[in-house]
């Protein structure tokens, strides 16, 4: 029996044991709220108690009624726990305003090479990866633009992923332009948009201007920032700090 089947068995046949088994899940999700600054550490246990009470009270019965087995039960349970945590935060805590906003990409923070910092940055990279997946078919083009704009080395695979029909000659041209071998050949942001627009128009059969592409990228950048900061707000990304995270992501 795999874990999902085991969870389903517990939910329907031993609901109390199901809750007991998932105390660590409650702990992890409550911990995520503490780390995001939405909850004081001292309130974590109270919140876990609140979640347990609600689960035992009525939520488990609702879960039994509504779970349709087309996804993992752990995901459903996690969503229920998360919603209860948010309910607790909005109802019980006076800690309405964030006081411990940690900007994980502060210069001081990033120079701290402690294991904890490493774990947090890896988690942020994991979140960024998930956010980029949401762009689906746009992702290869978006990724190419992001890499170019943050000054990351691009390669032929990036170009081919964004423009599958791109000729080898054009790919070589693109790589020479965007990965200059010397400082003399460095191009500025405006020139990068000119190069990128040429490719978007030729291989995407569009008639865009570099300015239109710049605006499109601004929109996408802001969208990624908004997704990374979350609702309720759990991070303080700006354009600059997101660029730092992207550089780490693509390195």
């Amino acid at each position, binding site marked *: 029996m795999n874990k*999902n089947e085991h969870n389903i068995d517990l939910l329907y046949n031993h609901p109390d044991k199901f809750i007991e088994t998932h105390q660590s899940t409650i702990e992890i999700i409550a911990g995520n*709220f503490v780390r995001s600054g939405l909850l004081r550490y001292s309130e974590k246990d109270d919140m876990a108690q609140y979640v347990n009470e609600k689960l035992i009270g009525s939520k488990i019965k609702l879960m039994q009624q509504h779970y349709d087995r*087309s996804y993992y039960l752990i*995901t*459903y349970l996690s969503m229920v726990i998360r919603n209860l945590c948010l309910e607790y935060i909005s109802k019980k805590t006076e800690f309405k305003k964030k006081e411990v906003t940690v900007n994980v990409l502060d210069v001081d923070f990033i120079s701290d090479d402690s294991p904890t910092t490493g774990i947090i940055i890896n988690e942020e990279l*994991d979140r960024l990866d998930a956010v980029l*997946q949401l762009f689906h078919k746009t992702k290869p083009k978006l990724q190419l633009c992001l890499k170019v704009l943050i000054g990351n080395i691009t390669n032929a695979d990036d170009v081919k992923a964004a423009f599958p029909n791109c000729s080898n000659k054009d790919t070589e041209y693109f790589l020479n332009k965007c990965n200059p071998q010397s400082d003399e050949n460095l191009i500025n942001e405006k020139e990068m948009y000119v190069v990128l627009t040429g490719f978007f128009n030729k291989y995407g059969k569009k008639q865009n201007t570099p300015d239109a592409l710049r605006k499109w990228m601004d929109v996408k950048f802001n969208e990624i920032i908004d997704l990374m900061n979350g609702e309720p707000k*759990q991070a303080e990304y700006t354009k600059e700090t997101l660029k730092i995270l992207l550089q780490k992501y693509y390195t």
Partner: protein
Amino acid sequence: MQNNYFTQNDHLREKAIFIYIDALKRKNTENIPEEIRDHVEECHQCKKEISDLYSSLQGVAYSDQGPHPTLEREVDTGSTLSAFFRMAAVIVIVIGAGVLSYILFTDTEPVVITDEHVEEEIPVPEEETVPLEPSPIEQYASNFIPIPLYEGLLDPQFRTDGLSVLSPSIGQEVTGEVTFTWDIYFEEHITLQVINNRREIVFEKSTIENQITYAEPSEPGIYYWWLETEDEFLYVGKFVVPVYEE
């Protein structure tokens, strides 16, 4: 089968969001139904729902969850089919080997069982056993093992504001009927449930009064009880029915 992944407002239903989360957790977004992926690509609101939930789930382990009911349905079918063919091949081989061995070995001499192969059975003397009757304490010992989950909920600081439970107090020893009384006014019914330490519900009743009487717990042990309304969990208590040795 029609999979209804969208609400009337043309956003993802929860089940579609969960499927997306499962795929992200498994690093396997290619198998997400295309209609879900296409919608998310264009919809910032649904992107936000997914990324917020994903962020809250960081650190939650997804290993050994088994095949995904939606994302791996086709893979499952494939593996089921190949398992079927493998099983069929094994059956054919076994039957073939049986037929072959029958043809090859039916003319050989049969194995004769002689007396020397038969071991004499040594009779085992029946022990005279006297059934041991456990003492009442031993008999009910397992009824007194607490349930950690409920023990953790007994702390009075987690009670609903304004509710005070008058009886029984936490851990109170009771004999005979148990009267539960509390002091709070609710317009709706309050339900009381009593469970034993095997998590079996032994008593349940709803009331709009402030008191319920439970005739008598059937056996000694620890009992947990709680009060709840339809939407709110109000209180968790515990009482003990002691063992009396004669």
